[in-house]
């Protein structure tokens, strides 16, 4: 108790250094926990890119690839799903709903997604997040389109703009669907998911722009079918790229998955998004580890600051040590006094650091979500945080041992005399 009060008063006496030291430890702890929160948030944010979907179904191929082109709008499908097959499954008694995706076109680098009203009604992300419109409405006619918020922001198209889509993912101008322009009728709210980076049209729209493209190449000049000659009723959707599926009862998910994988009329594949996302995330594990290592080093730097702050006082405090020695404080007590000082600095720093992290997350949440599409969620004080803080304190004892040991040696050497 006496040592604690001595340590406290000694630190208070060196107010400026003490505050600076505590602040640097606090900053490093806040950074460590902040990085941890960022890591967890990134994983959660990633995992919740899609929710409420039990299965993703596409043509047989790679599961990861299917996940990438349906959820993350990356890569391309190699095969389609026939409309009949899709109908079979969407009307299956155990299936609650499906969302069809028809992919393959783009506009200035933004993927075009042909889908139907189910997408606007049923698609969920981050558990309850739903697709909403910032302005306008969902595309209904075959020549209408809605823009994801990133796409809208980058392209700067207001409602009513005429848009020409490009066949494939390449640059505009090579194989444009310029015979069938689309009109922007809606702009989606920001979701901070890949939804924001796409352009949405109806399935019929996707069919319409490919009328005459049956060979995979544009129709010969003069054989194009202008939009004016097309009627929605005439457009028959023959294939989609993939679809999302929700089972009526989640218990059926595995059974439906098996049945889809064994579907005889067409080779299909169904994947469970959570499982596939987990596999995908494990590939970026190295980035996570790197983040953790950086966080660890930041703390080390903070604690080295403490070491310097205490160590530099050692010489001017030799007199103090001699006095304590004369008063009957043994070298062990001197060692303890210095350790307590380190521990006081580190624990105050930890408390302040946790508080700073709370405040940081609370104040940066909005900005980070808007700017980076990363939903920073404060997970509450987790056991891991306790472990981290414990590790910081343990490290502070280890580092505090350096000046403490030096003071111990000084005390033994100096005895009651002081060479100042």
């Amino acid at each position: 108790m006496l040592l604690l009060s001595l340590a406290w008063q000694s630190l208070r006496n060196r107010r400026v250094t003490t505050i600076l030291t505590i602040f640097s430890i606090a900053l490093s702890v806040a950074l460590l926990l902040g990085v941890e929160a960022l890591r967890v948030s990134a994983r959660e944010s990633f995992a919740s890119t899609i929710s409420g979907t039990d299965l993703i179904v596409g043509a047989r191929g790679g599961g990861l690839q299917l996940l990438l082109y349906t959820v993350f709008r990356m890569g391309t499908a190699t095969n389609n799903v026939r409309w009949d097959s899709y109908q079979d499954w969407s009307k299956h008694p155990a299936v609650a709903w499906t969302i069809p995706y028809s992919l393959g076109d783009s506009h200035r680098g933004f993927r075009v997604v042909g889908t139907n009203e189910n997408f606007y009604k049923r698609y969920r992300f981050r558990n309850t997040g739903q697709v909403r419109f910032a302005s306008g409405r969902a595309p209904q006619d075959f020549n209408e389109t809605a823009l994801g918020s990133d796409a809208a922001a980058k392209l700067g198209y207001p409602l009513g703009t005429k848009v020409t889509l490009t066949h494939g993912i390449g640059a505009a101008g090579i194989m444009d669907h310029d015979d069938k322009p689309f009109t922007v009728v809606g702009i989606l709210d920001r979701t901070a998911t890949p939804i924001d980076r796409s352009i949405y049209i109806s399935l019929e729209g996707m069919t319409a722009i490919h009328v005459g493209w049956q060979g995979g190449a544009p129709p010969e000049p003069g054989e194009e079918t202008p939009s004016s000659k097309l009627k929605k009723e005439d457009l028959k959707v023959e294939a989609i790229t993939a679809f999302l599926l929700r089972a009526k009862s989640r218990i059926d998910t595995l059974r439906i998955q098996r049945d889809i994988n064994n579907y005889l009329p067409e080779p299909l594949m169904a994947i469970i998004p959570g499982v596939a996302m987990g596999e995908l995330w494990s590939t970026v594990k190295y980035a996570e580890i790197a983040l953790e290592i950086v966080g660890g080093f930041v703390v080390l730097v903070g604690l080295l600051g403490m070491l310097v702050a205490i160590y530099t006082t050692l010489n001017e405090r030799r007199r103090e040590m001699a006095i304590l020695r004369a008063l009957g404080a043994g070298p062990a007590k001197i060692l303890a006094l210095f350790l307590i000082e380190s521990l006081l600095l580190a624990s105050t720093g930890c408390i302040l650091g946790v508080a700073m992290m709370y405040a940081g997350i609370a104040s940066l949440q909005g900005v980070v979500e808007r700017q980076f599409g990363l939903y920073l969620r404060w997970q509450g004080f987790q056991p891991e945080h306790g472990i981290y803080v414990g590790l910081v304190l343990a490290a502070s004892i280890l580092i505090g041992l350096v000046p403490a040991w030096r003071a111990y040696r000084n005390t033994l050497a100096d005895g009651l005399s002081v060479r100042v």
Partner: protein
Amino acid sequence: MSSPTSPSSIALANIQFSYRPSLPLVLDIESFVLGPGQSCFLYGPSGCGKTTLLGLIAGVLKANKGEVNVLGQDLNKMSGSRRDAWRGSQIGYIFQMFNLIPYLNVRDNILLPTRLHSSRKAEDIHKIAASLGITALLDRGVLELSVGQQQRVAAARALIGSPPLVIADEPTSALDSAHRENFLQLLLAQCRAAGAALLFVSHDQSLAPLFEKQLSLPDLNRAAKPELV
């Protein structure tokens, strides 16, 4: 609280000390005795082993050879940590200067021994402060004090809880002559009142007549190398 079987506060016999076995002897004293409650002036110019002798008596250092009996305790037979505890509870120590912990106020500095050792009681702080004329300073920071005031606070700290032995290592050398005599009278009076033995080391021989006993370390210490100025 000197043991009743021991008639003296300090009794050194045939002690030898060197900081390492390979180094020459720093101290070689045949006999040094201080009676209980006695005040002793020890003449100690620099370089004659003064600091080392005080370290031995206070139990910070351990003699290579010989008997170090202080307040009835054979220090050679005590462990380091027991000597530390014993020193804190039995000895009041005054340094030449900078006696005080800079981050504690006057009161806390004086009370420090009582907080380190339960056997030293704090109740006489006001009496001691009054007799040393520092009552008004109790709540001041030590850095605001003059050197003379600091030494009186150091004396109060050495005397609190009535330790049976007070060691003063050149406590007056930083004071001017007027304060020196005054401080010394106060210290002597307080030690006498508390029944404490006082071992006072100084190179200033003009102070010697004020003490009951006068000794010269260069004479006692056969290992001393007289410093030729």
